[in-house]
């Protein structure tokens, strides 16, 4: 019984793609926040490792800089740009929401009960942030490949 009482959906509840159609754009923003947060963390660690090559002399430093001067390297950096922009923009939306701003006011909702905390302002923010991230990636690509 004890084990049973621990029932949970597990990682399926996160990665099952059908969830994202059913639970709205906010749920999609949530998984994207998580993925970009972890992606940025991985990049951050890699970045410290890469820049630490400065201690190993000029040749090693230059060689490590060359790593991202390839087509794959450019695409990778464009992804980092996109992750940065989405994570920051969405992070600001979340912080405001989690501080209680922009959620609407409690009241007497009527059927069909549109939840006020998932309002158009928040949804527009998410779409705008995704759009901004795409724009930044496109600009980054234009500079790197240009």
């Amino acid at each position, binding site marked *: 019984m004890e084990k049973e009482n621990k*029932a949970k959906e597990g990682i399926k509840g996160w990665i099952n793609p059908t969830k994202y159609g059913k639970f*709205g754009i*906010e749920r999609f923003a949530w998984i994207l926040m998580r993925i970009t947060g972890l992606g940025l963390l991985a990049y951050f660690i890699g970045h410290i490792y890469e820049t630490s090559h400065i201690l190993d002399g000029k040749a090693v430093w230059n060689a490590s800089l060359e790593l991202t001067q390839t087509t794959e390297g450019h695409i990778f950096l464009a992804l980092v740009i996109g992750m940065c922009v989405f994570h920051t923009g969405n992070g600001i939306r979340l912080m405001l929401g989690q501080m209680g701003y922009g959620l609407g006011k409690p*009241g*007497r909702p009527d059927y069909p*009960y549109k*939840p006020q905390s*998932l309002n158009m302002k928040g949804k527009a923010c998410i779409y705008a942030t995704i759009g901004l991230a795409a724009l930044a990636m496109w600009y980054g690509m234009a500079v790197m490949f240009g």
Partner: protein
Amino acid sequence: MSNISQEISQEKSETVLSPSKSIKLRISRSNPEAGTEEKFDEFVIPVEKYTTVLDAILNVKSHLDHSVAVRYSCRQASCGSCGMKINGKPKLACFTKVSELDTDTITVEPMDNFPIVRDLAVNFTRMFNNHKKVMPYVVRDDSEITPGTGVKEILQTPEDVDKYIQFSSCIKCGLCNSACPTMAMDTSFVGPQALAQAYRYIADTRDKGKNNRLKIIDESHGIWRCHFAGSCSQVCPKGVDPAMGIQLLRSYLLGLRD
């Protein structure tokens, strides 16, 4: 009298309101205690315009397989018993019409993040314990039932009531907890149902239990595990909007309001 009520009053009992059609109902069957794995049984049943998913399941129970386990009581979205996954989304079976699903195959499964008792019936013990933990009642020493305090009635303005009434609509169906991605990984998480109720009582001007309640939810498996994915509010059938309550609770803890 409006047109609609006139039409209804003119209907004779033999009038066919909606010609019935057939759908396929797939019911998840399992019995963890007996160690049986989940399998799906399929039934073809007639439905009409206003047949609910619960009606459809009860039709199976009456005519095709009486061993299907399902919990229900009020059949009118009031008791909170019949929560289940309907075509993958947590919903009340009694509050979901077959016609609104717009498909000929309906799959019903037990809610996620709850232990299965059998088939569609799940165990609510954990959710009810979390609910009790947040002290879901007005806390104060003086009241009309405490002798000697002289209190007769504690008045509230309609505006006072507006602050919490939406959260008091909760029927403890557990749909929010089953939709929550944090609940999916953290079995100790207090959950959107209980957090929304913590807010309901804290926002009540008659209540004096705010500090105690905030202490209870301000712990490692408490309110900070919420990431505002909003799925609880997305599925709540009563307009409670737990996600709003949770973020408003946070603003107390962050000192942004008192």
